[in-house]
């Protein structure tokens, strides 16, 4: 959480968005009010197979993590 032992405000959490395998956007995610959780809203206008590659990055020491999720919009 912000100001905690692991300060959420110094960790950059961003989703890189793809539609049908092509990059379509970058979505900065915000602290969601619950410890450790970050969220963002993506306005999807077209159907397709989507992928969100979410990374967390701490510029103060280079620490980085990634997860990916796919979903279909009809």
């Amino acid at each position, binding site marked *: 959480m912000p100001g905690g032992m692991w300060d959420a405000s110094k960790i950059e959490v961003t989703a890189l968005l793809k539609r049908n395998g092509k990059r379509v956007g970058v979505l900065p*995610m915000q602290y969601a009010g619950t410890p450790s*959780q*970050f969220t*963002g809203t993506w306005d999807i206008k077209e159907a397709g197979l989507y992928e*969100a590659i979410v990374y967390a990055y701490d510029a103060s020491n280079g620490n980085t993590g*990634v997860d990916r999720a796919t979903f279909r*919009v009809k």
Partner: protein
Amino acid sequence: MKTKNILLGLCIVFLGATFSGAVPTEITVRVKTKDAKFLGNLMGGAAVSIKDAQTGELLAKGLTTGGTGNTTRIMKTPVARGVPISDESAAKFTATIDINEPRLIEVTAYGPMVNLQAANKVSATQWVVPGKHITGGDAWMLELPGFVVDVIAPPAPATLKGVPQDVIISANVVMM
């Protein structure tokens, strides 16, 4: 003269024993996560292998088990030379290897073993001499980088109906 010969003989026998007999040698491995604590049961541990770095021979393998360690000691107390940051609560993997001469040993850790998208691998080598245990202080400590990022929304594999629509992307981000 006879005494000298006996002493010489004993020395040869002793040296022979030192170089030919396998000597149990204990190695304790701890995996500390970057900017955080020790990797143990809470995250499924780290898979550790102990090999001969020159031949690739696998000498021991297992998981680190135990807790994350003492938070105050690891995260708040300034680090001082000779003062370990681990204590008995800090997760570790201990193995006894039988070696009969100094070996260049490679220790590799891969983890965490849960949330595998966060798993990284680190390794290091050092010489290990028969009977000279690597157990003092923090022992053989490796630092593992990474965050656990876990996308929790949308749930996989989701199919969302209708466009346009606002899709909420949420992730849980934790230190290892």
